[in-house]
C-alpha cells in the first residue's frame, strides 16, 4: 500500500485547521509581537480600528511571561521559548496598554488603533 504523500498530510492539516479554528479567526489581520529580555518588540503596534485581529506573541526568553492587558481584556501565560495566539476584538480608535505581568518594569507596550 502506497504511503500517503506529504501533500496529502498538508491538506489534512489545512482542513483540520479550517475545521477546528474559530470561524472568524482565519480572516483576521495578523500581527506579531516578540518578547526578548523581558521587553516587547515592537513596543508600539499600530493596528486598524474596528477589525478583529490575530496577535501572535513569541516569547524568546527562557522564562514564562504573562501577557496581560486590562484594556484589551486579555491575559495569557506564554511559557519560555513558546508562542501564543491572542484574538483582539474589534477596537475603537485609541491607545491600549499591555504588559508582561511577570516583568512589569520592562515589559510594557501598547496597541494604537486608528
Amino acid at each position, binding site marked *: 500500500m502506497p504511503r500517503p504523500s506529504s501533500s496529502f498530510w498538508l491538506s489534512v492539516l489545512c482542513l483540520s485547521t479550517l475545521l477546528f479554528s474559530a470561524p472568524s479567526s482565519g480572516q483576521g489581520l495578523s500581527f506579531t509581537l516578540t518578547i526578548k529580555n523581558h521587553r516587547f518588540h515592537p513596543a508600539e503596534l499600530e493596528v486598524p480600528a474596528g477589525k478583529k485581529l490575530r496577535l501572535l506573541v513569541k516569547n524568546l526568553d527562557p522564562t*514564562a511571561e*504573562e501577557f496581560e492587558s486590562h484594556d484589551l481584556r486579555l491575559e495569557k501565560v506564554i511559557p519560555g521559548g513558546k508562542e501564543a495566539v491572542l484574538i483582539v476584538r474589534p477596537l475603537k480608535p485609541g491607545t491600549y496598554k499591555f504588559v508582561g505581568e511577570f516583568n512589569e518594569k520592562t515589559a510594557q507596550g501598547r496597541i494604537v488603533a486608528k
Partner: protein
Amino acid sequence: MLATAVIVLREVLEAALVVSIVLAATRGVPGRGAWVTYGVVGGILGALVVAAFADRLATAASGLGQEIFNASVLFLAVAMLGWHNVWMTRHGREMAASLGSVGSAVRLGARPLYALSVVVMMAVLREGSELVLFLYGIASAGPGQSSELAGGFALGLLAGVALSLAMYFGLVRIPAKRLFTVTGWLILLLAAGMAAQAAAYLVQADILPPLGETIWDTSRLLPDNSIVGKLMHTLVGYTARPYGIQLGFYALTLVVLLILMKLFAQDPRPNPGQSAT
C-alpha cells in the same frame, strides 16, 4: 522587593479570601481545618503540576488550552459552591440552632466539606500556577535575585494571610443565627463572579460571543488591577469593563442557584437525625 510583593499579593488575594469565607461558613464544623488544609495543599501541588506542564497546556486545544482549563476550573468551583449552598438551605437552620453544642457536632460532620475543599483547591491552583511561573522566572534570573524573591514572596504572602484573617474575624463576629445567611450570600456572589470570569475566558478563546463589547467602563474609577478592584472582583465579581455575556452568566448563576435553594429548602420528610423537641 515591593513590586514582587504586590504581584504575589495580587495572586494570593483570591485564594486568601476564598479560604476565609469557607472557614467562616464552616464555623463549628469538626474537621473543617483538615479539609481546608487538604484544599490548600492539594491546590499547591496542583499549581506545581500545572506550571510544570504549562508548555503543553498552552498548545493544547489548538492553543486555547489555557483558556478552556481556566474556565473549567472556575466552573467546577461554581458547581461546588452551589452544591454547598443547596445543602445548607436544607440543613442550615438546625446547624445555626445547635452551633456550639457537642452532641450536634457529629451530625454536622456530614456536611459536604469536600465540596468546599475542592473550591479552595481550585482557587489555589489557578492563581498558584501563575505564581509558580513568576517566581521561577525570578529565581532563574540569577543567584543575586534570591533576597528579592524570598522577601517579596514572604511580604506578599503575609499581606494575603493578614487580609484573610481580617475577613475571617470580621465575619465570625456576626451572631451565629445570621452568620450562615451572610456566608450563604457571600458564597452565592463568589459563585456568580466566578461564572462571569469563566465566561470572559471563553470569550477570549473566541468560543462564546461577547454579546455586548463593553456594558460599562469604570476602569478609571476602580481599575481591575488595583488591590481594591481585585478584592471586589473576588467578593462580588467586579469587572471594570464587562462583556454582555458576563452579566448574563452572573445573573443566570444567581437565579439558578436561588431556584435550586428554594426547591430543596422544603423537606417533606421529617429529619431522622433530629429528636422531637
